[in-house]
């Protein structure tokens, strides 16, 4: 019935939505930032542990749609062990694959995150996928206030 949606709702997304990874409050975090999408009420709190320039641990709490939950769950997995510069580059590439034109997709550059590329066909849902990354961006820049996608 939902054939048209298979690109958007891939099995990996359902999996991360059902069983989000790194879904817990972190003790002794170095950074904590809240992300909020006022349009739909998606809300998450991102925790980071840093060792110098390297993100050694990441976790989150919050509630949101399947796309935003899967996106933040995947993100916390993929950024562990990355330097801040590497994470930022990943954010830039991820932003391109979720908002850009399909011909210049660099899907291989983002690994598992490629499952979220389907949102580019659903402009109303792009913010669901990028909320996690905007929150990460704020955390890495050490911006204390909560950020929103608006």
């Amino acid at each position: 019935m939902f054939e048209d949606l298979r690109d958007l709702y891939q099995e990996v997304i359902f999996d991360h939505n059902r069983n989000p990874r790194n879904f817990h409050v972190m003790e002794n975090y170095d950074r904590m930032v809240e992300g909020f999408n006022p349009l739909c009420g998606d809300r998450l709190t991102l925790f980071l542990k840093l060792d110098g320039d390297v993100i050694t641990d990441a976790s989150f709490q919050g509630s949101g749609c399947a796309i935003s939950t899967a996106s933040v769950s995947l993100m916390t997995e993929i950024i562990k062990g990355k330097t801040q510069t590497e994470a930022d580059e990943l954010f830039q590439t991820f932003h391109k694959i979720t908002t850009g034109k399909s011909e210049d997709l660099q899907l291989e550059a983002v690994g598992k995150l490629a499952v979220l590329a389907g949102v580019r066909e659903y402009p109303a849902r792009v913010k669901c996928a990028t909320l996690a990354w905007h929150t990460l961006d704020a955390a890495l820049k050490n911006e204390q206030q909560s950020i929103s996608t608006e």
Partner: protein
Amino acid sequence: MTYPIEKIRADFPILNEKIRNKPLVYLDNAASCQKPQAVIDSIVKLYSHDYANVHRGVHTLSVRSTDLFEAAREKVKTFINAQSEKEIIFVRGATDAINLVAQTYGKANIHDGDEIIITAMEHHSNIVPWQMLCEEKGAILKIAPMNLQGELLMPEFEALLNSKTKLVSVVHMSNALGTINPVKKIIELAHALNIPVLLDGAQAIPHTTVDVQALDCDFYVFSGHKLYAPTGVGVLYGKQALLEAMPPYQGGGDMIRTVTFEKSTYAGLPHKFEAGTPSIAEVIGLGAAIDYLNSIGMEAIAAHEAELLAYATEQALQIHGLKIIGEAKEKGGILSFTLHKIHPHDIGTMLDSLGIAIRAGHHCAMPVMDFYKVPATARASFAMYNTKAEIDVLISGIKNLIEMFG
């Protein structure tokens, strides 16, 4: 007489649209209604044959436009049974109308320590203008609570009324829950203490017959776009004596009698509150929408929608994991719901892929979402052109997406 559903559907050209290769099932009527051909034609005819600015020139087109514009005011007056066309103020929408009352009546009559009563189920448009006024004036906003069904708690409401209460502003029908409030009773209770009452009718007006004299409300506001009319037009009804005593809202052309650099004098009602060139085509479109609704009959429309709601509710209750948000006894055609472990935005996207348009979100009623401890709900809302077959499509879509989520 049977309800002429086939004719009505044929009158709305957008209902022929295919969305993602499926026939459109439009169930987002509480956000905005679609427009019948008669409304579209009224605008095309105006711009093609009769358009000029209103209340200005002596030339033929200005006279034609003015006549059409003022005829629409007369239609609104009759539609809500106001006493005089002077009581019908054209504004941008219900939000604009509430802000108008807050900034004129409110500023003139509400002072430090005074109280304004609203309810727990208000749309942001009937919360924020009062918060802004309260902040400016040092007044206090009081919230009349509701029960879990989404019904106003009348004893608690009554207990809030006191000599400091300067205004009661209540939604006639809740956009997030569908609740129809006992507005007649609310008005009686408030009037017993000489407190004026504003009714936010944005959601109620397309679904029910509104008689402002029978209700005895002091202000009634609504938007055109939820009444099958264009966007950019709405109505503030106010009792003439109240409107006459109120200071003007915005200054500018059309709302003045004389202007010198020393002092200006203001026009009489209704023009005192209509500064600048109004939404001419939209107002005329609103008149056409009212003609169209009258040709079907508001009672017939209300009966049709009540049938749709009853059917949709019965079907929805059979879906395991579906929770209806808003189960008031008195309820209009709104089915707000959540699904266990499936976010409303996912529901919205999935139903869209089947051609079904619903609203997913907080419905500009965040306090209502907080009350039910949900971030958002999915909302199907029914209009005069919807059918049971469309509800079947919705219900089957919901069942299938639950299966897909697993």
